[in-house]
């Protein structure tokens, strides 16, 4: 439905009626759509991602450009890295340095942030902190040294809520020289998880001057795996598939299930776990990665799904909701049984155990810094304020769905400020001024205040360093893994141990794109020499 200012009405779940007083309301910012004066037919059709193996000091050229894509039957102008969705899957050996020359051909300035890589600070891709944004027709050359094996990803650090949502993301797989780094598997699959918000005309416009959906982040209503809405795969009975999962969505945390197939979690952001562990699902927040081995034991069809308990605020209830992400056909042809049997063994990664052991002595000590997360609103529509304030008796640990589509859409970064606050100094967001030395083990305690105007889970991301989640709510983590992003549920207190190993000016922020642009970020300094 067309509304004033070129906006279209946000898609609504008819079970959740619009609040009185919001009829005809639109965000206070203008709408943005890419390439509004361009005929999509003149643009190249985007292609699926290609694998690009690189060796030490190899160079890759990446162009950031407009592409034509069709999603759920809608032809749209979107963005792409080298015309691909997702961007090229870059493979590089551990400790290599790769050169990536980026040319910006879109209408917005951009950068590339190499998410999770303990990279040379100059190439971290943060405009105003480590580089100037790359203007239209300008180039920037990144030197990306990859010290840690695992799955990483790259994306813009300029208006992620728009550019990332329009397709600017890709994976960087750093391979270990150890052929037994992971256990046996028959094959590997890359799963880039995303969602997009569309109506009967295609993608809903984004905010021009600042993001819409500032309260909860922009949830999509169409799910995608590797940019496809109809992802399918075929496996043999007993086949062990290693899935590399990356969540590139703006705000959605997925709970990925694999039917009744046996699954074990092997690795996450920056390392393997101390021990492989059987699980029934993978909870993956924006920007997180997980490596999970799945064995398909029975012939038939298995739906890989996002299996959640959504919330209907108007009815005050949880309700089950399942979105199929991919359909797996399991044939009755048997896979190699030796690999199938090896799945039963839960491997311990002794090098990870050895590496994290010295940090356990820090678990019991007082934190070096304490942060709380909260939110401040100003000039929000009165109907939104009234309904939010009257619904404050319970906030769920996680927001799995957009339970208030119109209120969320109408809230912009002009009206909503998400806050990371230093408990000791009271400094908020970019007022925070922390300085560390290389070699410091810094214990941060982060509390997600449940009594704010709109409490919500936050995937906290730290640039350029790696950290351990030591505990959640005082319960020590029994199976450690090096992370760069971790979920902080509502009401929870998370202790993290950050290993300051990489000098420079680094960001720490919420990885919900709209929260980031609504202020929830700051930078800290790591010095490589004593002052």
């Amino acid at each position, binding site marked *: 439905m067309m509304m004033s200012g070129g906006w279209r009405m946000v898609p609504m779940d008819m079970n959740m009626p619009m609040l009185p007083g919001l009829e005809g309301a639109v965000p206070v910012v203008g709408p943005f759509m890419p390439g509004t004066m361009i005929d999509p037919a003149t643009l190249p059709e985007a292609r699926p991602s290609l694998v690009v193996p690189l060796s030490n000091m190899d160079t890759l050229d990446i162009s950031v450009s407009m592409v034509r894509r069709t999603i759920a039957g809608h032809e749209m102008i979107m963005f792409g890295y080298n015309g691909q969705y997702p961007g090229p899957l870059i493979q590089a050996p551990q400790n290599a340095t790769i050169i990536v020359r980026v040319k910006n051909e879109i209408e917005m300035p951009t950068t590339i942030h190499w998410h999770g890589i303990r990279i040379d600070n100059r190439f971290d891709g943060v405009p105003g902190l480590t580089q100037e944004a790359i203007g239209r027709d300008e180039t920037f050359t990144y030197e990306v040294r990859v010290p840690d094996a695992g799955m990483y990803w790259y994306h813009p650090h300029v208006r992620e809520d728009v550019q990332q949502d329009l397709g600017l993301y890709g994976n960087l797989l750093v391979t270990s020289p150890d052929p037994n780094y992971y256990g046996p598997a028959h094959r590997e699959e890359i799963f880039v998880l995303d969602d997009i918000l569309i109506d009967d005309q295609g993608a809903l416009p984004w905010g021009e001057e600042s993001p819409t959906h500032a309260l909860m982040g922009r949830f999509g209503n169409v799910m995608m795996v590797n940019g496809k809405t109809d992802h399918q795969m075929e496996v043999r009975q007993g086949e062990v598939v290693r899935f590399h999962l990356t969540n590139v969505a703006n705000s959605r945390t997925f709970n990925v299930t694999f039917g009744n197939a046996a699954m074990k979690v092997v690795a996450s952001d920056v390392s393997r776990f101390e021990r492989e562990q059987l699980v029934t*699902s993978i909870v993956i927040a924006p920007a997180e990665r997980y490596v999970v081995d799945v064995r398909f034991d029975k012939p038939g069809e298995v739906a890989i799904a996002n299996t959640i308990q959504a919330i209907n605020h108007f009815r005050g209830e949880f309700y089950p909701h399942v979105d199929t992400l991919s359909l797996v056909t399991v044939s009755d042809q048997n896979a190699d049984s030796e690999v199938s049997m090896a799945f039963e063994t839960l491997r311990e990664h002794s090098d990870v155990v050895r590496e994290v052991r010295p940090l356990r002595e820090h678990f019991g000590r007082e934190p070096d810094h304490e942060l709380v997360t909260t939110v401040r609103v100003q000039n929000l529509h009165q109907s939104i304020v009234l309904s939010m304030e009257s619904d404050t008796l319970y906030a769920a640990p996680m927001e799995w769905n957009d339970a208030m589509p119109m209120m969320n859409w109408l809230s912009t970064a002009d009206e909503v400020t998400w806050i990371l606050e230093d408990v000791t100094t009271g400094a908020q967001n970019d007022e925070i001024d922390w300085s560390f030395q290389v070699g410091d083990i810094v214990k941060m305690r982060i509390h997600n205040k*449940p009594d704010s105007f709109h409490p919500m889970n936050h995937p906290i991301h730290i640039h350029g360093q790696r950290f351990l989640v030591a505990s959640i*709510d005082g319960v020590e983590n029994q199976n450690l893994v090096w992370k760069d992003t971790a979920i902080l549920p509502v009401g929870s207190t998370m202790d993290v141990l950050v290993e300051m190993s990489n000098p420079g000016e680094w960001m720490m922020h919420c990885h919900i794109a709209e929260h980031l642009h609504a202020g929830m970020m700051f930078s800290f300094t790591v010095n490589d020499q004593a002052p």
Partner: protein
Amino acid sequence: MLQILALLGTIGAFDYSVTSSPAETKAHEIIPTHIELCTVGPQYYAFELVTTKNIPGTGLATGQVQASVSGNSPFSVQLAPDGSYAYDLHVSLQRMRAPLQGNLVAWVTTTEIDRIERMGTLDANLQASGRVSWNKYIVVVTLESSDDPHQEQWAGPIVMRGMSRSGMMHTMVGHGALQEENCAAYGYGN
């Protein structure tokens, strides 16, 4: 007074007696000097247990339920296969006497009471632990004649009960801007 207690004693599934002997009373009383607060788990999702006053010695009783994510979870939250939240629960009671007969047993049930699971018998410190994987739930402590771990539902009188914080998520109408629902009626502290 003893007549009233005797009358209350018939409410349960079995009879029990209350002693007036000071020595015996002391042996079975557990009255801490302070009310324990939750030390593990998010304070926000902890909730109080409220006495029914049905059982002698429980008129001043207090209780708490802590809900925490297991340290074995590789994620910051813990979910059941259907996506429901799963918590490790820890029940603790204070300011009450341990029963002379029978066992205090903690249960968890859905808000519709259509599913019930036995958490376990409270120990000498009036504590018990268990797990739950329902989004809204009620914790109930009952006085049972049996200590059968396979008992499917309670048979004795309810001693304490409380609803998970998620149970406070009612309709927006129920918590409208001009309306204040009496949540104490549901067993909440406020």
